[in-house]
């Protein structure tokens, strides 16, 4: 089994009309055994920027701590929050630093940039950025997620419809992957508010 599949994960981010949604599964496993069903994979960097980290849980925790540290320093120096595009470049640089001994992570970054324009991107474990206008996926269920998102996605969805779409795409994909699932965690972000919801899916 690959080290990226050791803990199991599923992540997806989608763009809507002046809003975005980022969702993850909740399982923490050790290969075939499930250890926890409330594991947090999506982290807030600031009010309008979220990062999801799929792959090895230990590296996700280490990388999250490093990124929070870098962002806090940036905030102190620049006296403002980082733009999502800048943050994506930061994550890419930090991952490429470890080019010959990488973090076993695939991040999904989602944020509202200038004029609250939604921004999403993903990258591989050594920082190759993949910008998208519609949706990005990561994790052990990524193949199912690509299919589900491609068929369910429509451009310019409003917040509630975007929430429905991303939730259905996530739940149907993780149901086909034994290493991810045990519910879902969805963050819906508009310029004015952030809504966090827990989904109940097949608990297996």
């Amino acid at each position, binding site marked *: 089994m690959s080290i990226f599949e*050791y*803990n199991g994960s599923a992540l997806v981010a989608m763009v809507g009309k002046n809003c975005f949604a980022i969702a993850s599964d909740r399982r*923490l496993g*050790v290969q075939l*055994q499930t*250890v*926890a069903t409330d*594991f947090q994979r999506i982290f807030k960097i600031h009010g309008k920027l979220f990062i999801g980290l799929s792959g*090895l*849980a*230990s590296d996700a*925790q*280490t990388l999250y701590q490093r990124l929070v540290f870098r962002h806090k320093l940036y905030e102190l120096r620049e006296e403002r929050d980082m733009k999502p595009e800048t943050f994506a470049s930061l994550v890419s640089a930090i991952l490429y630093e470890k080019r010959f*001994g990488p973090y076993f992570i695939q991040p999904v970054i989602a944020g509202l940039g200038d004029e609250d324009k939604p921004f999403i991107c993903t990258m591989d474990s050594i920082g190759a950025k993949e910008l998208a206008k519609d949706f990005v996926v990561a994790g052990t269920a990524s193949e199912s997620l690509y299919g589900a998102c491609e068929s369910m996605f429509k451009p310019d969805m409003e917040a509630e419809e975007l929430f429905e779409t991303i939730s259905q795409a996530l739940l149907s994909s993780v149901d086909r992957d034994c290493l991810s699932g045990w519910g879902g965690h969805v963050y819906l972000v508009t310029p004015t508010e952030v809504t966090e919801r827990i989904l109940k899916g097949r608990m297996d």
Partner: protein
Amino acid sequence: MESVFGLVGKDFAIVVADSSAVHSILVHKTNEDKIMLLDSHKIMGASGETGDRAQFTEYIQKNVALYQFRNGIPLTTAATANFTRGELATALRKNPYQVNIILAGYDKETGPSLYYIDYIASLHKLEKAAFGYGSYFALSMMDRHYHRDMTVEEAIELVDKCIVEIRSRLVVAPPNFVIKIVDKEGAREYAWRQSIKDGSVLEA
């Protein structure tokens, strides 16, 4: 293979570990204490490579004491868990410690807590956790019988059920177990469950 498991009850937490010290096919001793008292209100049960287990838990214990000497107040359980994870994570890509840890503690403000830290430094706060081949039996027993706010008697009954399962269903089952408890009175040894006593086999 070593079994360690633990659970959180009402105002207390329990950690149980087997007590066999094994090298290949030889059992060196059957009363090895694998649960270290870190300070007055924290216990750390560890399983894995014998040398790493003994050295690493002692290292954490001494650093917890050092913090208290320097700062005049004890570390919280959460801080200890994060410190332990940090040490494991730093060593991971240089000279990894092959130790799996269940850390339990009682804090005045937040009550009892239990942390699962595996050898690749994944940290998660849980109410029930287990490591080793015994985990397949202990986790299933706990999934069935555990509920929030168990009394000490109920928890020990559950622990004994888990021990009975491990003894009867695991092919190389460890015969003896040690149970330690931590509550507002402090951390202490609660009981041993012995089916083989050292030195009782041959009496000339």
